[in-house]
């Protein structure tokens, strides 16, 4: 009996001791945890965290790699927004592009995932493959096909069909004409937009429990759209947020497709986007400070938009 009491009292003492030990003691106690984390964190810090801060620092300097960086304050940003017409054109193109491919691609991913979810299980894989495959193909490789399809001469499939159907009289230079460069890029990106987010939606839909649908039916939900609006969407909020984050990032970082299809520079910069501008200044002209300022603008744009989306879709804590 007394032994038991003694044991519980020491147990209590230990508990009290572990409740408020110094931070350092805690860290020592979890040293194995940090060891497990170490390889990832080391690489993460080296190739993500430090570069973000370095980019911010560099954006206030003039740096051409040969000489050491020279502090210029806000000059790079001022030049970007006041004097660099091509940058403003690139921002405009990127936003035009993102405003269409982002929301449309996002909704398309969800609607297609929802439709696939409505068909019997055994057929689902075929449809998933149809929509997901374009997203996993290399931008460089598929640009080859799209360049053939939109080829500006009569050998181009689209021109050939359009002429046969009487829509066009003569071949249209799809990838050289200022009017069609951006629309073609948008079309190709939409084709490739059913990616990781699409898979997350599909999996999320499969995970909404049957009980919830049954409960909804008892509550008077009759139609499929009511089911979608009152049961499915609220249950899938976390996946919807995940998909939105990925969509924002991918629609703002368009690059591969633009260079491969429209060329760099494209006709009158009609296909010029922020990433092409960044690449041009960083690795063609080696004006690293100026290019870093472009990177920071892009970074702020992405994180800012994502914060905004978090406020809408995230659970308020």
């Amino acid at each position, binding site marked *: 009996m007394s032994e038991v009491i003694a044991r519980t009292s020491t147990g209590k003492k230990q508990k009290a001791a572990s409740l408020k030990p110094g931070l350092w003691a805690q860290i020592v106690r979890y040293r194995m945890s940090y060891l*497990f984390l170490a390889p990832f964190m080391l690489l993460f810090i080296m190739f993500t965290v430090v570069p973000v801060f370095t980019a911010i620092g560099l954006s206030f300097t003039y740096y051409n790699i040969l000489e050491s960086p020279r502090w210029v304050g806000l000059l790079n940003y001022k030049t970007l927004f006041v004097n660099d017409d091509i940058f403003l054109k690139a921002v405009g193109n990127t936003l035009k592009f993102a405003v269409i491919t982002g929301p449309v691609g996002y909704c398309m991913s969800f609607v297609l995932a929802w439709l696939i979810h409505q068909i019997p299980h055994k057929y689902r894989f075929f449809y998933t493959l149809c929509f997901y495959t374009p997203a996993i193909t290399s931008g460089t490789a598929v640009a080859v096909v799209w360049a053939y399809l939109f080829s500006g001469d009569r050998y181009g499939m689209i021109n050939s069909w359009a002429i046969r159907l009487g829509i066009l009289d003569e071949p249209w230079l799809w990838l050289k004409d200022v009017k069609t460069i951006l629309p073609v890029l948008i079309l190709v990106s939409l*084709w490739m937009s059913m990616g990781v987010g699409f898979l997350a939606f599909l999996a999320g839909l499969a995970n909404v429990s*049957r009980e919830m649908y049954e409960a909804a039916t008892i509550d008077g939900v009759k139609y499929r759209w009511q089911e979608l609006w009152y049961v499915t969407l609220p249950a899938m909020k976390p996946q919807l947020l995940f998909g939105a984050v990925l969509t924002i990032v991918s629609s703002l970082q368009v690059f591969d497709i633009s260079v491969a299809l429209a060329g760099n520079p494209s006709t009158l910069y009609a296909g010029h986007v922020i990433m092409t501008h960044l690449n041009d200044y960083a690795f063609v002209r080696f004006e690293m400070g100026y290019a870093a300022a472009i990177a920071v603008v892009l970074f702020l744009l992405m994180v800012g938009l994502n914060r905004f989306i978090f406020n809408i879709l995230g659970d308020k804590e």
Partner: protein
Amino acid sequence: MNESSIVRRNDWSGRILFLLLTLFGLLMLAPLVYLTSTAFKPKAELFLFPPRFFVMNPTLLNFTDLLSVTESSLVPFSRYIFNSIIVAGSVVIGGIAIGSMAAYPLSKHKGMPFGRLIFKMIILALMFAPAVTQIPQYLVMTELGMMNTYWALILPGLASPIGLFLMKQFLDQIPDALLEAARIDGANEVHTFRKIIFPLLQPAVATYALFSFIAAWNDSWSASVFTTSDQMKTLPFAIMSISGGVNDIARAGAMAASSFLMIIPTLVVFIVTQRKVMETMAHSGIKG
């Protein structure tokens, strides 16, 4: 599984939706079918007017051409394939190792100081493209003397925030009771990780493998910036260099063939991993 399927309900709107979905699916596949068909077209059909969608007399000539086109340059095509396999393979295997190791404490060692902060940083890293960090990365590579090495192509791809995020979310729903049992049996952390966590993590590992393979295999940027010698370039560079620009019709066949070869592996990896991927993606949500 929720059985509210269109076909079972047997209504007209459902049938029409099913038909539209099928048509749209085939339309999505059309460009890839066209690519495949072009890759097997003989010269005569490439220049045929009006152009035809499907190949009539399939031939492997474009694939053999691909080898001869690149024989005249200094680097054989097989070298690009080799480089791509080395880089993508290392990124996948190394990434799985360090990603799963990092996901374990983040998910299961709740009392760890700074654990939540680290996870918040990972979420923040999901919010921007790695592309915005490319200039400092380039400077780091130059500084460390890693330019023109495989290291430059592999290391930046290893610590993938999205991979770690998915693994951690997947681990979260594995009951802690399993770990408690192992600890009571006296297993140390390394043993617990190897014998319990890693086997349970298999679906998330497959998912990580798929996503990181696609990212590494399709990455045209790293090789174009971190390497200057043609010996170190990967497949996307090879495709771009085969053509003198995409309108070079003379090499259209070889280009289609190389693009076709480039796409096949990503497709195979998806088909192999798809079941486990769907299992993992169910836990992909961000709680906000």
